[in-house]
């Protein structure tokens, strides 16, 4: 069938600069560039181009430019080019349109409508280069009250405090499973987390055995509906265990790792036969109610001897705050909430672009709900989905989060360009693929250094912003909406965020 879909990208090759080295041909796993030996020149098939910019960056002569192809359809506000192209693709295939990464639609990004405070005169700003600036955070349940016995100069704590994760900076790597991302990308996240005093999340694909001893201490291992790769050692080598209920990119939807991506090592780690599809059902088949979740939380606490905090990750959906409050009462130590713009390796586009609520609103309403019920101490909140820079982290914490998960940001640090073709398994950057030829492109020393640099850079910026507000410990920013002001927001949005408008 002849495809009626226009190419998304335009490839412009400067023939004078091109040396016919065929580097672009080797770089592109989608087969966009081919060499014509007769004409001694490279031909580019624009219909195959994902726009990942790999060939552009790696062309030694800087001879290639890849840019979005302008649309030549008659302009139509209702029928955008994307709507037309998606519709044609479906007419040609009869299938669900898949995509990767996070929601790219122009829903309001609240981060960009919130401004931070700074000190002037009455409250001196603090210079983080001269004064201590503390970002250390503990994630887990805290008691309401501490029982202390004091006598003849000796003070003894009687209250037992449950297990907590200590992070040196409030930024953790979000769940990205081995299998969805390459071994090298997974290993780079692990190395960078250990180096930076933070944690990486294994996602639902298990933790390769050889990584457990070295990186288990900075791993949050996930228990998801597919139950891949779970054994006692997996749970106990980690710093914390996370039950994945939902994901911001695809709330209410399961996962599907196609058999082609299930290599021998992926199969061993996930404990499934090589080459079979790894399917995560939409719900956990043993969780149909909050009581069931409570039992799983307790089972995991039993399995880990009450030594690890248990996190529950849910997608931010309409009534999630009430659900999260139930989850805290069910015994979770950490609630991870994933917002509308959370990323994914593969999701139906209709789901990714239409389900869930923005994380900014979600953080605020969850924090307020838990405070209102007087149980905010009993859990920590990790916010995920759409954190793009250090200022977003500061705003998330001031809205009530304890820490944030970054996924897309970490991938971008390693080279990802958000081309959204993760689901094809052909990631030219060696990140979202299990093809050894492609994943070998990602050098773990370099990628982990890039990630560690990112954490360090953001931490410095957070320290600068805190110092500017006259705060020298992150815990004094948590839920401190006094330091936020909204611009260009409706009254109801300010209500949900719990912040004043600028100038108020």
């Amino acid at each position, binding site marked *: 069938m002849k495809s009626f879909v226009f190419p998304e990208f335009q490839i412009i090759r400067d023939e004078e600069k091109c040396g016919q080295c065929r580097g672009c041909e080797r770089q592109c796993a989608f087969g966009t560039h081919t060499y014509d030996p007769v004409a001694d020149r490279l031909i580019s098939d624009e219909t195959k181009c994902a726009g990942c910019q790999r060939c552009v960056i790696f062309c030694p002569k800087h001879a290639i430019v890849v840019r979005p192809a302008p649309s030549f359809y008659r302009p139509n506000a209702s029928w955008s080019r994307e709507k037309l192209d998606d519709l044609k693709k479906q007419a040609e295939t009869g299938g669900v349109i898949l995509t990767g990464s996070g929601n790219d639609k122009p829903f309001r990004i609240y981060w960009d409508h919130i401004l931070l405070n700074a000190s002037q005169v*009455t*409250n001196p700003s603090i210079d983080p280069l001269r004064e*201590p600036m503390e970002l250390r955070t503990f994630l887990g349940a805290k008691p309401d009250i*501490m029982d202390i016995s004091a006598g003849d100069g000796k*003070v003894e704590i009687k209250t037992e405090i449950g297990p907590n994760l200590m992070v040196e900076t409030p930024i953790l790597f979000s769940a990205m499973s081995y299998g969805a991302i390459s071994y090298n990308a997974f290993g780079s996240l692990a190395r960078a987390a250990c180096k930076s005093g933070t944690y990486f999340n294994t996602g639902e694909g298990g933790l390769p055995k050889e990584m457990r001893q070295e990186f288990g201490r900075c791993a949050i291992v996930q228990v998801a509906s597919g139950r891949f790769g779970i054994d006692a050692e997996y749970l106990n080598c980690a710093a914390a265990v996370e039950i994945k209920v939902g994901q911001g990119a695809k709330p209410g939807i399961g996962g599907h790792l196609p058999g082609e991506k299930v290599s021998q090592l992926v199969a061993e780690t996930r404990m499934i036969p090589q080459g079979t599809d790894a399917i995560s059902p939409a719900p956990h088949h043993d969780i149909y109610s909050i009581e069931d979740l409570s039992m799983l939380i307790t089972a995991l606490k039993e399995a880990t001897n009450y030594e690890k905090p248990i996190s529950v990750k849910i997608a931010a959906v309409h009534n999630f705050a009430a659900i999260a409050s139930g989850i805290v009462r069910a015994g979770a130590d950490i609630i991870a909430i994933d917002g509308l713009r959370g990323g994914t390796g593969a999701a139906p586009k209709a789901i990714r672009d239409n389900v869930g609520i923005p994380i900014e609103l979600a953080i605020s309403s969850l924090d307020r709900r838990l405070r209102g019920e007087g149980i*905010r101490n009993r859990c920590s909140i990790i916010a995920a989905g759409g954190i793009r820079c250090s200022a977003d982290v500061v705003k998330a914490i001031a809205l009530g989060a304890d820490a944030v998960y970054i996924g897309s940001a970490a991938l971008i640090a390693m080279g990802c360009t958000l081309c959204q073709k993760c689901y094809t398994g052909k990631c030219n950057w060696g990140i979202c693929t299990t093809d050894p030829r492609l994943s070998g492109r990602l050098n773990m020393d370099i990628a982990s250094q890039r990630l560690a640099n990112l954490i360090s850079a953001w931490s410095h910026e957070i320290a600068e912003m805190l110092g500017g507000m*006259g705060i020298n410990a992150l815990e*004094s920013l948590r*839920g401190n909406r006094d330091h936020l002001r909204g611009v260009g927001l409706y009254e*109801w949005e300010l209500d949900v965020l719990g912040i004043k408008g600028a100038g108020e």
Partner: protein
Amino acid sequence: MPRIRRELYSKEICSCSIFGAMNQGGERFNAAGVMRAIANMHVRGNGLGGGFAAYGIYPHYSDYYAFHLMFTGKSMQDRLEAKAELEELLCHKFDVVYDEEIPHEDESTMIDPPLIWRYFLLPHKRGEEEALSDEEYIVSKIMQVNTKIENAYVFSSGKNMGCFKGVGYPEEIGQYFMLDRLYQAYTWTVHGRFPTNTQAWWGGAHPFSLLDTSIVHNGEISSYGTNRWYLEMYGYACTLQTDTEVIAYAADLLMRRQRLPIDIVAKILAPPIWNAIDRMNQSERKLLTTLRMVYGPLLMNGPFAIIIGQTGRMIGLTDRIRLRPLTAARRGDMFYLSSEEASIRLISPELDRVWTPNGGEPVVGELNNMRTVLQ
């Protein structure tokens, strides 16, 4: 579902002078000295607030809670209505043994003074509330008055102590209430205020107090929003539009309700930095790490120097990086705390010891013998 309105609150910002004098022998003295001392720091205030807390002033009513009430409002009518509404509540919930208007000088000398009244009372608990301790009961009623009754504010509620405050320089407030003539206390704490942003109102002056704990504060709390939500979880309603209130409530929560010793409370309000904690021995490290984990939301961030007054005790504390001044001194039984040493020297030129406490390190003066003030 009804929408939760925005938490619109405002925090006042001010710079100030603070002064405290205590006779650890329990001997009582009038406010003449502390009024001279605070007047010496006149330029640290701007005439928009001053106040005193005095301990040991009601020996004849020492078993009764002394409520100091402020009835504000534009007209006398508003004030009397607030008073009537309050008295209806008092009749139902307390046994009032004596009440009177707090004596003062000519009103025309002050800016818009409210009606200020005092009640000596005992709790009268009924039904389910009988299970509450007296103090819990009193605190819940104060929160009720301050949030529910328009134009009525309880600004002092301890036994055998009282706060006096208003708009004006502290020495003027002292004269208005005739503190140098009518009262004898073993501890006086004083505050002169320099607010930069709020309209001056009598309730916004320092000290802030709850039961017998009073706070005078110089500084601005940058962690106000965080401290506030944490305290709200424990039922403390922040109504007085100032950050100092959170210190008073934090002190009440930690010292009265959770019975933590002052050394521990200081480590919660102004903890050591992590670098220092990491170098401590194992037991200290465990204690301080746990304190910061559990009570992180009560860390008072930003510049502050405070004097906490309590029955039989006066405590000085600064923030952990010491962004506001505090000087301590002793002379015989007298224990002084002040923003400036000069004010102490003015009323006691000879001193046995004068020192500057480290940031986050509490200085405590206690009565040598509690009985002397209970007689």
